[in-house]
């Protein structure tokens, strides 16, 4: 699943403390402390720029708006996604960790529950992120999307389990305790403008 497009990088410019949205047609993408900051790519080296671009594209294609929020005081995916959902005008959010693990959440759900969870980060490619964005937007519109097919690979454990743990620990290091979620703007840049 590669595209012939030039590599992009993304930086997240902090705007202001995140507030509850009022538009019912928005999805909040809530990213973890180290996403597109300390880290630049997922566990299988999908650039965070591409992850965000595909999530945003999936949402835009459905005619729904998106806001980006960085959660700074926790690296727990359920917490990140739930914070995002509570900030979302539609109540729908996509939460994502630096290593790629992703979750679609809704504000009325218990924190440890979710609408869709993609726990196997090594199996998430740009096409899956596009579908996740699209599904989140469809939930925001009150539609009933078919859940994104989840994949499974018994041999992901020997290959990725330890690296996932390592990335998780690093993400924990980037937690800034006591700092609330902040609204951010994604600034994409082409690294190879040729």
């Amino acid at each position: 699943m590669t595209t012939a497009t030039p590599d992009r990088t993304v930086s997240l410019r902090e705007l202001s403390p995140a507030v509850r949205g009022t538009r019912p047609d928005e999805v909040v993408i809530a990213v973890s402390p180290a996403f597109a900051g300390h880290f630049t790519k997922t566990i299988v080296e999908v650039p965070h720029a591409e992850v965000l671009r595909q999530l945003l594209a999936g949402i835009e294609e459905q005619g729904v708006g998106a806001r980006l929020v960085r959660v700074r005081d926790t690296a727990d995916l359920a917490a990140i996604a739930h914070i995002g959902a509570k900030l979302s005008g539609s109540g729908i959010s996509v939460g994502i960790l630096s290593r790629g693990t992703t979750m679609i959440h809704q504000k009325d759900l218990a924190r440890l529950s979710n609408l869709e969870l993609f726990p196997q980060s090594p199996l998430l490619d740009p096409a899956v992120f596009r579908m996740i964005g699209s599904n989140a937007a469809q939930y925001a519109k009150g539609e009933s999307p078919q859940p994104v097919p989840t994949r499974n690979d018994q041999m992901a454990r020997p290959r990725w389990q330890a690296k996932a743990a390592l990335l998780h620990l690093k993400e924990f290091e980037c937690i800034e305790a006591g700092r609330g979620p902040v609204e951010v703007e994604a600034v994409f840049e082409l690294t190879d403008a040729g």
Partner: protein
Amino acid sequence: MSASLDTGLTRGDYPLSVNRPELLRTPTGKPITALTMDAVVSGELSAEDLRIAPETLELQAQLADASNRPQLAMNFRRAAEMCAIPDAEVLGMYNALRPRASTAAGLAALADRLETTWSAPVCAGLVREAAEVYARRDLLARAGAEDGEDTP
């Protein structure tokens, strides 16, 4: 309660089903030798006949003591106290012991119920001990706390 309960068992009595079947009875009072296929087919046996009796758990506790396994023996003695408690209530008690599931008063009430209703002082002791530790480690239920489910 038979007299043999007072005479402590030794390791040589194990397995009881082979060496001391005469000590084994079902909670309904049938000897273990009554659990035959004929009894099953004729409908004389019910599921209740295939449960362990508290007296048997005490015998197994004696065997655990005789094998230098005091914790295992203690577990069997708690279990003996729990035999009479219905399944749903046992599960409810277990859930009440989960972190931040009960208030101090709730655990105290649970311990009292174990002691008075079910004559389960050892279990009650375990619950009281938990209540003390939970209070110190901030594991009692908080008022208005957010609901959460079990997900590691």
